[in-house]
């Protein structure tokens, strides 16, 4: 995924939604980390 594709996905989001978007990624990464 490049910057443009990511941008297209988030361009219409509010700041709260962008934050949630980032948090979801962070949480899923944490889950992978904790599973190890």
């Amino acid at each position: 995924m490049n910057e443009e594709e990511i941008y297209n996905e988030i361009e219409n989001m509010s700041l709260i939604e962008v934050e949630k978007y980032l948090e979801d990624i962070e949480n899923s990464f944490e889950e992978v980390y904790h599973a190890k």
Partner: protein
Amino acid sequence: MPNSILDKINQINLEIEQLKKEQEEKSSLEKDWIKAKIAEKEVELADFLDRIAIPLKEAVKKVIKEQSPENIEKFIEAKKNEKIKIEQNLLSIKKYREFQQYGELLYKLINKSIEIEEMGSKIDLHDGSKTTFMNKLKEILPKAEYIILEKTFLEGQESIKGKEGIDKSRFTRHFNFVVAGVLEEVMPELIEEEKFITLKRVEAGIEVSQIIGELSQDIEKDIWKFIKKQENKLERINNLLSRKNINRTVHE
């Protein structure tokens, strides 16, 4: 809300989990092959995260820069409210911990588990005799302890009611496991399933101290994970809200 990055991480993670399951069922030769596949997938995940880190940061920056001052103001307001909520949550959790004397309870349960285990070694748990087990359990757990544990359990449930962020059903399930048997008389309907599962594990030869130890650790981990997460969030919000940082954080 679409999130292709999240989907990709979940997909790779799912593949890893699947391989791990296969690994358990296979012969040692095949296990090595699967182990290598798991390592490959982990590298794929790490590569993916490396690859998207900068584009993600740049895309987010772009979106933030496009926000109107009103939207930024709204965001800051929302963060202020969130800060209050997190502070209240943390306070409740900390109060809850003090109130419960949680550490003492865990200590008590772990010690008790040693007694239960000693008792378990004296009776034949493999004959599937639930009643024998429960009766013996009652012998070593005086009534007073039933009451203490019941009270702790009820208060624990009450104090986490409505608290955002805690996986309540998981917490309750774990707690039920721990007090399964002890609460048999006072809350039979609530713990029936948990008691059954715990007994099945005991009958399968798993040591009671191990079961209780695992559950206690899980509860402890859950609570600490929650507190840590909330504290990190609070720190981020505090940084964001500190006046000199507002513009830099929002616009960078």
